[in-house]
């Protein structure tokens, strides 16, 4: 079994605390994505699991065994690096087989495994080339091949797609997902790209400042963010945030800066305390007004278009609301021109509320 259990992990570089106390339990076979902004500690965490960094405090268990003091080679993990880290003086074949050779596998075994890994990744014809004669995408496949061929307990990925161009990145993302379906080994994947996180993960671990902000399934984090940070991190374009204040009572709701009160369902309002809040509205929860009457739970916004960003099927329209800007995701042909008047319906049932000071979801 190759589950990973991390308890109370801390990693300091001198006075700098990169990882401030992480508890994480990854079941066998799961695809876990560590995601977060630069400096959040995700790469450091990955490297401690690999054994490339020592830990200051805490334990790491792989398959039930505590591996804190084990050398990387003894942990039976494989890693794919951001810059591919292919051995430049070796052919692709030797690159892939390097780990097996270092562990003294019989030659025939190595050859067989290398062929199989290469076939799986479609790099069979490249086996005798040198890394410098390969494209970025091909190199990345070789790096993955080198990891697969060892049949390790765990795969670690350290931002493997960051150096590829956008088109290639989309293709490789699909390949990695398919790989996981086929092999089923536990995979831990680090990225700063929230799209990669959303599309690849069984579970997302969103990190910030050396701690876990929230973990759960992608849809979990997307639809029920625990903090404002999580809500703003996932989803493109970003969730819109409006500053407001809770006003209780029969005419209660969220009062915005310009005095407008957005009505909330009584059940929801009752759970809130008086005080400043942040209202989060996703662009896709806004649409052109439909019909004369405003549907229950919706709010009508009368405003003008400030900016338009067409992306093909959809267009992102920036509009004003209570002195702040909102971005709405609309159908491409549903929008007028810049400066035109527009009426939008906002689905407040799906909106999130966050405490203005702590950022926690309410």
């Amino acid at each position, binding site marked *: 079994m190759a589950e990973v259990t991390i308890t109370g992990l801390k990693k300091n570089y001198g006075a700098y605390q990169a990882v401030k106390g992480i508890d994480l339990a990854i079941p066998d076979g799961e695809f876990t994505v560590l995601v977060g902004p630069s400096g959040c500690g995700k790469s450091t965490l990955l490297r401690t699991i*690999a*054994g*490339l960094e020592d830990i200051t405090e805490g334990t790491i268990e792989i398959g039930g065994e505590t591996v804190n003091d084990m*050398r*990387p*080679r003894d942990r039976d*993990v*494989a*890693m794919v*690096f*951001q*810059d591919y*880290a*292919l*051995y*430049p*003086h070796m052919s692709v074949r030797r690159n892939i087989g*390097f*780990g*097996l050779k*270092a*562990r003294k596998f019989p030659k025939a075994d190595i050859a067989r495994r290398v062929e199989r890994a290469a076939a799986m990744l479609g790099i069979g014809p490249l086996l005798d080339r040198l890394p410098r004669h390969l494209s970025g995408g091909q190199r990345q496949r070789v790096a993955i091949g*080198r990891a697969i061929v*060892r049949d390790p307990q765990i795969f*670690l990925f350290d931002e493997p797609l960051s150096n590829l161009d956008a088109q290639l990145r989309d293709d490789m993302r699909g390949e990695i997902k398919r790989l996981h379906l086929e092999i089923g080994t536990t995979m831990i994947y680090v990225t700063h790209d929230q799209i990669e996180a959303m599309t690849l993960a069984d579970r997302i671990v969103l990190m910030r400042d050396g701690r876990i902000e929230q973990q759960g399934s992608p849809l979990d984090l997307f639809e029920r963010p625990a903090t404002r940070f999580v809500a703003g991190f996932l989803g493109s374009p970003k969730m819109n945030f409006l500053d407001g204040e809770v006003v209780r009572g029969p005419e209660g709701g969220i009062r915005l800066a310009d005095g407008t009160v957005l009505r909330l369902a009584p059940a929801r309002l009752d759970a809130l305390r008086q005080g400043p809040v942040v209202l989060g509205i996703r662009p896709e929860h806004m649409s052109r007004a439909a019909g004369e009457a405003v549907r229950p739970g919706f709010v009508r916004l009368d405003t003008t278009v400030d900016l338009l960003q067409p992306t093909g099927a959809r267009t992102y329209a920036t509009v004003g609301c209570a002195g702040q800007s909102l971005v709405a995701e609309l159908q491409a042909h549903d929008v007028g021109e810049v400066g035109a008047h527009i009426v939008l319906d906002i689905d407040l049932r799906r909106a999130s509320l966050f405490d203005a000071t702590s950022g926690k979801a309410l």
Partner: protein
Amino acid sequence: MTVPSARPPRPVRRGRRRFGAGKLGRGLLIGLFILFVLVPLYWVFVTSIKPSEDYLAVPPVWFPAAPTLGHYTAALFAYRGLDGLINSLVVSTGATILSALFGTAMAYSLARFGTGGQHLSFWVLSQRFLPPVAIVLPVFLLYRNLHLNDTRFGLVLIYTVFTLPVTVWMLFAYFRQMPPSLEEAALVDGCSRWQAFWSIAVPLAAPGIAAAMVFAFIACWTEFFFALILTGRNAFTLPTVFRAFLGFQGAQYGEASALAVVSLLPSTVLGMLAQKHLVRGLTLGAVRG
């Protein structure tokens, strides 16, 4: 220790009047200096093939009418120049190899792990500036007790020590600019730290190691002071043979020149081959020429 590295020495094409002197002045300066460099070399070469009668000729003979190689044979055999040459070769090669082994290992450790921090680095660096005269006497006494005086091995050891700083520092800079992800990949793949060092880092650093070895060899080949004091009739090196020509009474000019020509050829050729790395070698890796 890193200084913002100089870019490769492709000379910069500047506008017209930049540094004063103008084309003629520059050409003159360069030409004069080339002359300055070449004159002694030429004179030594010519003297080495002059028959002895030409020595005292006035005006001086610029090229002998009847060149001879007799001085070379005399220098190599009568004056035991060949023995000196062989000893120099053995000692220089031995010290170079040892220096490369120990120095590469240390440089890697300093570069990748920051072993010993600033203090260790500074200590090794400062060895470069230690005047030989400060340690030659105690080393002489030490070797006397260990029966290492006048042995090639004794000289190899001391030469290794005095070429270590340059080797370590050149390779330190070299390893620093190699991305560690290759060795990390090797570690995760199944290498021990030693295997990652020996099978991945060292082959990739081969050009730097070769350059360091060239400079170490040249330093050993041209060294005089330690050889003078620590060797005698058995292990004497090529530079020490020139002692025999001190206070010449004339007859030895040919031999002295012949031996000089023989001595300078290997180190000069090596130096020219390693030209690309010269700036790095001269500044202990602080600057990439």
